[in-house]
């Protein structure tokens, strides 16, 4: 067993924060992998989700993808992709797996956002003579922004927790200290790394929830001003 004091000592030791496998570098790696995957997923899933919501075609696809994605273990998906694409392409394979994990919630968020816009507003925009692109740009996207942010929040949680497993396939990220700590029975390193992971995930979740709340409030305020 080890004590809270040991954990504190490990976390405050500058040596554990510097170097290739120092917490600072692992943190940056973890965040970079997460943000890159989320950005790619957003670029792919938002247009598709908006298009499906706007046209009303392919709705069963969204539902099927989002329910099937819950049943697929992210760990197995990552391992399988790295295995099949070859260990030399593991960086690419891991990002691909993470994008695959992030797409369903973002897609569902974009689709649900468009779908939840009252029919009066959507038809009103059309009746004013807006083109489809104008409808999306001036009506669809602003009104579904908070739903899209909600999709990103779920995607962020899933991706951050899958990146924790990346060291198992030879990449970095904050999971490194957990995996190494388990192997070496270094419980201070193990718990210290877990603490940093917890801080990263909860801070990110809070920030995205705040963003979602802000977008929500902007919506309700614009209703009052009208």
């Amino acid at each position: 067993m080890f004590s809270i004091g040991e954990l504190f000592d490990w976390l405050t030791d500058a040596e554990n924060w510097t170097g290739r496998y120092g917490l600072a570098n692992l943190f940056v790696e973890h965040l970079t992998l997460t943000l890159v995957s989320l950005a790619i997923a957003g670029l792919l899933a938002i247009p598709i989700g908006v298009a499906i919501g706007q046209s009303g075609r392919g709705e069963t696809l969204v539902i099927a993808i989002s329910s099937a994605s819950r049943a697929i273990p992210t760990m197995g998906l990552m391992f399988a992709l790295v295995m099949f694409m070859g260990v030399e392409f593991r960086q690419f394979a891991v990002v691909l797996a993470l994008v695959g994990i992030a797409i369903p919630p973002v897609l569902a968020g974009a689709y649900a956002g468009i779908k939840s816009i009252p029919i009066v507003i959507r038809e009103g925009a059309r009746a004013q003579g807006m083109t489809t692109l104008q409808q999306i740009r001036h009506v669809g996207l602003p009104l579904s922004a908070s739903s899209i942010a909600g999709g990103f929040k779920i995607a962020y949680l899933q991706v951050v927790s899958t990146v924790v497993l990346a060291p198992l396939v030879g990449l970095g990220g904050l999971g490194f200290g957990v995996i190494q700590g388990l192997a070496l029975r270094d419980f201070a390193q193990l718990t210290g790394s877990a603490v940093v992971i917890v801080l990263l995930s909860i801070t990110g979740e809070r920030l995205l929830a705040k963003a979602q709340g802000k977008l929500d409030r902007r919506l309700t305020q614009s209703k009052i001003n009208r």
Partner: protein
Amino acid sequence: MEWAAKNFDFVLELSVTHLLISLVPLVLGSVLAFALVRLTPLKLAGTIGTTFSAIYAIPSLAVFVALPAVIGTSYLGPTNVVIALSIYVAAAMFFSIRDAFSQVSKPTVFIARAQGLSPLQLFVHVELPLAIPGLIAGLRVAAASTVSMASIGAIVGVRNLGYLFLDGFQRKIPEEILTGLFAIFIIGIALDLGLWALGKVLTPWTRRSAQRV
């Protein structure tokens, strides 16, 4: 599929462990969530909700390895995994149980009370049956994510289907990883279908009214 056929008994053994390590947390977590929803005063509900959504944000591997430091269990083995998964289930089910019961229409509850039903009768005969569709929907979501999350327990030494991912990767047997993915998918689907059927059995009136229409 040669690998799967050759190691069928082993995969079956891992599947049974996997199913158990998912079912126990589902039951424990739901009971915990139910107790929290019904027994805590309204004032505390917001705090519990915030705490649970924060817990839900923590990656499972971090919870598996942080629990021993908090409650003094051993680092390896199924105890941490079962406790951690139960907390995740409780976190998810807290919201779905609360919503399922708040969706029971108020007039129905008032009428039942006016008919002289005791609080227990009201709960057993009116509130619970009417909340079942919401409860089942919540359980289906929780079951799917628990079954896939349980595989991460293999990293801390639980012999479940996640072991096939680790072992298959180390020994470079793609078939082993695919077998694991497939078996977990099947367990997930089976649980989902089971819960769906349970929901249908427990709410016979939805079927009857559908027939009449």
